[in-house]
């Protein structure tokens, strides 16, 4: 029984630089890195390789002492060239110089019948040992799932509505059989259902023919594609419950692992944003250095390179590494400039959700903007009301929740729905906020307070 869910609340941030649907020709990427900081909730990362070691794609290189079973593996084969640490010896990056030809660790292969016959325990053990497990994110908290848990349901959103997000139909083209194999595995991990969230706008998706799942269609502006929003409308998370979520890429990766016996970290990424000369897709692996894509390919030097999208992404260096979960690179101009009377000047060049004096972007609802990283104002106390609610298609009062977190009021946080959100679900609030609060940072603080209380 598939449902059609139309969401009205939200806002699409239309930016210049959508990736053209073709795969570009770039210099092969030489180094790849796994960044423990990409795994929110990893508390005690422990490296198990040393500089100079050689690894194959799928060799374990890292684990979290708090979740020892789950192995984090090398995305490519090659030599560990650097284990980079920051202040107080915090582990930052494990860099691998890739071989020109990737060698894979060989893992057990499963036919469809093998998967059906295997015990849940065997599947979990196989997944945790081979590096695909970190693709499973648990809610609440938005951290790597604990293999000891059994989730109520598993949710997969097959489209992304973030600004300039890659087209998942393009990313997953021709991978439906792997996706199906992945679903077959996931189905055995939960007594509940596996839910697919598809875009209500494009119904041609290959994913529509996947068997053994409950498919629902979502339409409307961002954040309709956020899995958290979809969960909220299908089977909301209550206190004490755990559900798992995956990006479709993770499902394919699991499918490849079980079908081919390899940890395949190859992925397509979208190169986007106003500052990139050639906005196209690129074929690479997890943790790719972005140097090959950015060097000589930007319109100016004062560019911010973002791993991910402009709402939830992270600023990286021009020779930095793409985040583990990211399928997108965004380039925007840095906004480190003063603007004379910038707070009252009428403008059609800056995007705004609001229509206050001189904000004229509402006149061009289809226009694409080249936004920069300027904050456009200063942080203030909450003043305007009703705006966060209007971009959050959930039965949640974001301002009350944020205030409860700021006051560290645990009961209030629970009652107001902290279990149902992670950063990305309230990221739009951070964009539209008149008072410029670091909304996502506050949400994470609240989650950590609840998680470790």
């Amino acid at each position, binding site marked *: 029984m598939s449902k059609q869910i139309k969401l009205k609340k939200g806002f699409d*941030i239309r*930016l210049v630089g959508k990736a053209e649907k073709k795969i570009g020709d770039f210099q092969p990427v030489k180094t790849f890195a796994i960044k423990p900081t990409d795994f929110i909730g990893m508390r005690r990362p422990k490296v198990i390789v040393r500089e100079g070691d050689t690894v194959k794609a799928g060799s374990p290189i890292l684990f979290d002492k708090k979740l020892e079973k789950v192995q984090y593996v090398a995305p490519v084969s090659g030599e560990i060239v650097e284990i980079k640490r920051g202040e107080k010896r915090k582990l930052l990056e494990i860099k691998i110089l890739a071989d020109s030809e990737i060698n894979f660790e060989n893992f057990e292969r499963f036919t469809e019948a093998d998967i059906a016959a295997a015990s849940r325990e065997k599947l979990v053990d196989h997944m945790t040992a081979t590096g695909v497990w970190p693709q499973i994110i648990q809610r609440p908290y938005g951290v790597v799932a604990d293999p000891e848990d059994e989730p109520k349901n598993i949710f997969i959103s097959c489209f992304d509505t973030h600004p300039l997000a890659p087209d998942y139909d393009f990313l997953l083209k021709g991978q439906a059989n792997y996706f199906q194999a992945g679903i077959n595995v996931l189905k055995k991990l939960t007594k509940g259902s596996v839910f697919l969230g598809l875009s209500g706008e494009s119904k041609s998706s290959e994913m529509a023919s996947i068997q053994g799942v409950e498919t629902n269609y979502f339409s409307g502006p961002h954040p309709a594609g956020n899995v958290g929003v979809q969960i909220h409308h299908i089977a909301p998370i*209550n206190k004490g419950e755990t559900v798992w979520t995956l990006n479709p890429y993770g499902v394919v990766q699991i499918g490849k692992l079980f079908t081919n016996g390899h940890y395949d970290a190859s992925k397509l990424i979208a190169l986007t944003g106003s500052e990139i000369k050639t906005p196209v897709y690129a074929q690479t692996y997890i943790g790719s250095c972005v140097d090959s894509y950015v060097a000589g390919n930007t319109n100016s030097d004062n560019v*911010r390179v*973002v791993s991910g999208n*402009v*709402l*939830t*992404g*992270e*600023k990286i260096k021009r020779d930095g590494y793409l985040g583990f979960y990211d399928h997108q690179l965004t380039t*925007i101009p*840095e*906004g*480190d400039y*003063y603007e*004379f*009377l*910038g*707070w*009252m000047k009428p403008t059609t060049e800056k*995007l*705004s959700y*609001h*229509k*206050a*004096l001189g*904000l004229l*972007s509402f006149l061009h609802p289809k226009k694409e903007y080249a936004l920069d*990283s*300027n*904050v*456009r*104002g*200063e942080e*203030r*106390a909450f*003043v*305007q*009301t*009703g705006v966060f*609610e209007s971009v959050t298609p959930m*039965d*949640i*009062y974001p*301002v009350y929740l944020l205030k409860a977190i700021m006051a560290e009021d645990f009961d209030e946080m629970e*009652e*107001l729905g902290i279990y149902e959100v992670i*950063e990305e679900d309230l*990221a739009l609030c*951070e*964009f*539209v*906020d*008149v*008072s*410029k609060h*670091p*909304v996502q*940072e506050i949400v994470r603080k609240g989650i950590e307070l609840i998680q470790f209380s």
Partner: protein
Amino acid sequence: MKFLRDLLDKQKPLFQKGGKLENLYYLYEAGETFLFSPKHTTAPRGAQVKDAIDLKRMMITVVIAMVPCLLFGIYNTGHMHYLAVGEAASFGDKFILGLTLVLPIVIVAYAAGGLVEATFAVVRKHPINEGFLVTGMLIPLVVPATTPLWQVALATIFAVVIAKEVFGGTGMNILNVAMTARAFLYFAYPAQISGDQVWTYLGDKTPVDGFSGATALSVAYQSGQEGVDAASNLASHNSAIMDNMFGFANMFFGFIPGSIGETSTLMVLLGAAILLFTGVASWKIMLSAFGGAYIMAAIMQLLAVNEFMAMPAHYHLVMGGIAFGIVFMATDPVSAAQTESGKWVYGLLIGVLTIIIRVTNPAYPEGIMLAVLFMNVFAPLIDHYVVKANKKRRLQRATV
């Protein structure tokens, strides 16, 4: 602009940590950010781009929305004076006289309030908040043009300190600041803000024979006391200086005595259009407050035991300060209800209470001031129940 920027950059070290004037950093910052939007960039994690709006822009939108009321108020102050003293005068004369009366009040309100803001910002080490841009303009618009300047200053200081700063500044206040200033004047110096003598500036001239300085509301109230039809009593009032002064149309246009900015419903609606179009104020509050007032007035009319109650309900919407209060003060996002369903209740009750106070309470001819302040106090309670319903939905889901 480069020259200004260089000047600011040159002075900056003086105010930064270790500089001679570091205590005054937030004064410098206020000036700097007024001239130039800062060059801060977004944090490495999280939203990398931000909406073009900020609090300064939002507040200046409200100030702009008040400009029609201010300009009309200036003109009407002069207009009323020349009518009362029976002299013919040009548009320019009226406007200039109004300007000489109103402008000092605006300046004093901004100066006194600004001083308090700046003092608190320096002592408490927080940035100067833009909320005062609005408060400083609202206060002059809700007092009569004859208010002594020292009272304006005192009321402003009282309101900014007691209604806002003690709670932590803009965004933290419970009561609408400008309404608090007016309430302070009303209770501390009633002689200068109520009665029949304060609304029209006479100067040292004597008014024409038969002139009355009463406001429409007090005339309507008198009709109730004397048992004469309110609408016709209003229409014939003050015929010595103007025909049909308190007719519905003239009250709507606003050529009547009253506080500086409140008299013209038309100008208020113009401001409301700006606020609603820009989305800065809540249409729910405005609609429900006007609706509540009209419904309550209609109920009064049905139950009429005196002539004031029997007055046509739509008269209530153009008399006194109800329109101004609803559009500019009830909608203050900080002191109003903050949940969307709460806003309906909050607005509705403001409208209802205003009419109840007007019609049934002989001590207060106008009800909007107390209705807004009263509902400011109750807004958190309304929100509490709305949020509680949300929590309950969540809890019920958990047990199924």
